């Protein structure tokens, strides 16, 4: 199945930190660590309409790194930091 587009959940704030960023969901009070600057760049690039593969390309993520970033995004979807938007 083709992925729907992703976006940072509207209830989430990001704070840049030396290791990446902190993400806090004001609704669920959940605090999540984005442990790599690449993940932060991709999350900031999600706009709710561009397909994830294109966001990864535009962020300059090399092909061999893309599966790891996609796994990180899956985990962020499960924790509610990133949400799926129906196309």
């Amino acid at each position: 199945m083709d992925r729907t587009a992703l976006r940072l959940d509207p209830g989430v704030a990001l704070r840049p930190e030396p290791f990446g960023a902190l993400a806090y969901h004001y609704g669920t009070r959940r605090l999540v660590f984005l442990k790599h600057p690449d993940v932060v760049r991709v999350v900031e690039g999600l706009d709710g309409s561009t397909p994830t593969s294109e966001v990864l390309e535009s962020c300059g993520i090399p092909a061999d790194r893309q599966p790891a970033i996609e796994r990180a995004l899956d985990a962020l979807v499960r924790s509610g930091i990133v949400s799926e938007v129906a196309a």
Partner: protein
Amino acid sequence: MTALVDQLSRGLMAPICLTWELTYACNLDCVHCLSSSGRRDPRELSTAEAIALVDELRGLGVFYVNIGGGEPMIRRDFFTIVEHATSNGVGVKFSTNGTFIDEAAAKRIASMDYLDVQISIDGLDPDTNDAVRGTGTHETALRAARRLAAAGMRDFKLSVVVTRHNVDQLDGLLALADSLGAQLRVTRLRPSGRGAQSWDDLHPTDAQQRVIHRWLLDHGDRVLTGDSFFHLNALGESLPGLNMCGAGRVVCLVDPVGDVYACPFVIHEQFKAGNTRDQGGFTAVWRESTLFADLREPGSAGACASCGAYDVCRGGCMAAKFFTGLPLDGPDPECVGGEGERALAIAGPRPVSDVDHSRRPRPITPVPVVLVTK
């Protein structure tokens, strides 16, 4: 040490978990009060200063503050400060003894977004609780909890300091929280503030530490702990959460007069990093204080260096060591490997904080008076 804990130990642009004690005034006189509260301090931050601090924290990207005291609801501007914070993206979790939660306050609290409340209760029955918190406080806490539940507040917290006398009530306390639609929070007793005098009598026994560890492993997914029991990881399986001392690294305390300490459990000159009224405000204290810079340096394991458990217990709690007279680079006084008891037997004098707002002053050494007759 995980890469994340390693990174966090070097400090962050702003704290993750900032405790802000709004006032030293308190209507109670709990024997384990971390901040030796009782009387208001005349130098406490004004409403305008408190609002300005919230704005500064918002600019730093602090997601939420943990408000405590003293009893924070004693401040007449309590809701003014809280509403300013929550309407500007700084969530509030506040800790109260419940005395001032009448029906109107309960409705107001329940109606606010980004506001969490925890009611302190230290025993399942009045005898256990009131021995620590004072006569009638069990009923007061329960009444406040029932009012919050009736007002539709969901997932408020019942907050329990685990002592020798309530370890065997943990199941009952969890059931009590469930019955109120609340969440149970349990934290570790520290020998800080008035706790310095009560810790020897109240802290869990070695056998009870094992019970707590097992209980948290079995119930940790439903119970909050503030990640305060990481010294128990030396028993084997690690507890959920960030297993590290966050003092000055991811955590700090702002006290009612604006003094910034490394954590809520070390209100003592030695751990004071600065004051929010100083040039540069809180931001400069967090980013530039030499105390915090030192805490963010990789620490030595000291006497724990040869212990196989050090990687998971990290030597335990700095505050617990400090206020029991133990070296900071040695075992925690409640070390489950038995090193704590050995260390306590030869511990130095216990440091006493000169920050004490207890209504009953500590007994002082009598000064002999010599009457001279002419």
